[in-house]
């Protein structure tokens, strides 16, 4: 069945189409070559994006830590330390790649790639702008949940292959934590899917369009969704191992956990993967609850290819980075939970709450015929 909104946005479905439109000359080339080129370009875009995000993100993380802790943060490389992340990247690449003598060499090398791929493959279905999505998969959110399971495998293998007991403890914690928290994360994004009626991320964003501005967001659709958003943020914070729940790598107990024995660029892959995952969950929260790339009171689809994409990309990134900042802010405020408390929180608090929410949203959609509160208020005033 053809999505209704696809007729509204005829030509802005994916980056591939955008490239085809921008360079009509490639019509002469064989089709499989064009497809290959498009795949490579899109993948390169995603990798470059995640690299830049990781660099800027780590800089912002450190600057924010400095601000909060009455210090300055990095300030020597470039004005206000703004190219510190380049220095860090060069250092990570040039550093000696140490391997413990008794490690399992194959798995030790394999693990960082699994973690990296698992967290960054989610970028494929992130709807960056009105026409910017690597592939508008029909199973978008389900796909993210599926590929992110590679992360836990990577962590588990990395911790085991290091042949370090602390790493193994960290890996076990990490795997258990990620597997457990996938449930509340998935269950708290399902209400959004219910409202939109599709698993496709682009479709979910489109369902929040309209000229009400922020009141078309799923966040304000009904009280259950509002609550579900915060449950999602909490669970996502745990699934990406951010601070109140950074048990797999807690530096004061396990000394970086599964990453203890990694150095150089292999450590860099774990690091990139962590930031990539942070971005993916925040982007999903934006797409699912905060209206995605919708520019308030403007229809991005009518602005033309260039301006529509640029503005909506800006809006999307602003929202996502705000969520990333909140996550970092939490990181510099809170102490760490213990592993049993983490599990208790997951199974006794988050999971029941998400089921409760799911029930509430389903009933709401059934009773009010899919209308949210803002829509009902709007209908009230004509």
């Amino acid at each position, binding site marked *: 069945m053809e999505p209704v909104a696809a007729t509204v946005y005829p030509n802005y479905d994916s980056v591939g189409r955008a490239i085809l439109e921008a360079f009509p000359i490639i019509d002469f080339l064989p089709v499989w070559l064009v497809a290959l080129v498009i795949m490579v370009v899109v993948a390169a875009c995603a990798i470059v994006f995640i690299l830049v995000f990781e660099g800027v993100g780590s800089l912002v993380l450190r600057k*924010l830590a*400095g*601000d*909060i*802790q*009455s*210090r*300055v943060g990095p300030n020597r490389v470039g004005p206000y330390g703004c190219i510190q992340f380049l220095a860090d990247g060069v250092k990570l690449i040039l550093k000696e790649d140490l391997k413990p003598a008794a490690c399992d060499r194959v798995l030790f090398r394999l693990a960082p790639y699994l973690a990296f791929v698992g967290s960054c493959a989610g970028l494929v279905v992130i709807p960056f702008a009105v026409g910017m999505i690597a592939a508008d998969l029909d199973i978008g959110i389900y796909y993210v949940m599926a590929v992110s399971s590679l992360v836990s495998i990577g962590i588990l293998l990395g911790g085991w292959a290091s042949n370090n007991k602390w790493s193994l403890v960290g890996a076990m914690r990490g795997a258990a934590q990620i597997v457990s928290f996938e449930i509340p994360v998935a269950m708290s994004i399902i209400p959004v899917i219910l409202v939109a009626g599709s698993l496709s991320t682009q479709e979910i964003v489109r369902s929040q369009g309209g000229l009400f501005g922020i009141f078309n967001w799923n966040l304000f659709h009904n009280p259950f969704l509002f609550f579900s958003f915060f449950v999602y943020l909490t669970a996502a914070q745990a699934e990406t191992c951010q601070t109140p729940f950074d048990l797999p790598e807690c530096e004061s107990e396990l000394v970086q956990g599964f990453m203890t024995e990694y150095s150089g660029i292999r450590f860099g892959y774990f690091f990139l993967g962590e930031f990539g995952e942070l971005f993916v969950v925040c982007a999903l929260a934006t797409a699912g609850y905060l209206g995605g790339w919708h520019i308030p009171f403007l229809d991005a689809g009518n602005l033309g290819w260039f301006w529509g994409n640029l503005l909506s990309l800006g809006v999307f990134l602003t929202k996502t980075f705000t969520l990333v900042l909140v996550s970092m*802010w*939490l990181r*510099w*405020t*809170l102490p760490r939970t213990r592993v049993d408390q983490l599990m208790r929180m997951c199974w006794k*608090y988050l999971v029941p709450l998400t089921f409760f929410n799911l029930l509430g949203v389903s009933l709401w959609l059934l009773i009010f015929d899919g209308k949210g509160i803002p829509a009902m208020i709007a209908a009230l005033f004509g």
Partner: protein
Amino acid sequence: MGLREYISDISEAVVTIAKGMRITWKYGVDPKEETTIFYPEERMVMPERTRGFLFNDVARCIVCNMCVKQCPIDCITLESIKGADKKNVLTSYKIDMGRCMHCGLCVEICPPKSLVHTDGYEGSSHTREELIVEFVEDDLATIKARIAAHAAELAKAAKAAEAAGKAPAAPANPAGGEKK
């Protein structure tokens, strides 16, 4: 666990986390809260009593050996020879800055107050030998020559005094080298 407790559990967590986040927000947005001193460009004003590196004014040193005896970790070594006027003359006064713990006991006990703390604190070096600081600038031969000259001077003065038949006024001891 009752429902009421369950909900109060959640709300307590949210409230206490929000309180903490308000404080970090307060410090985060306030740029005046930065307490860092940009060290090579800015420097702290050291208080008067700062116990930095030791400095011995060898011109005033009376070679009483008190500092060597007082030092709990024996980081001060001095060598002296008998001067022309029966007073000791320093030939070497070394402090191992790598071992010195800046306790200040030697400074307190120094009778002529020639051993003092400076406010210097930047003393990194590539080798440990560089940390052993020698305060007597002249080498042994120069000092011996100076003592000999002093002795000759004294002898001359003594002779003159003998000739004059009264006690000589001893000239100032020049052996310590000039003041830095």
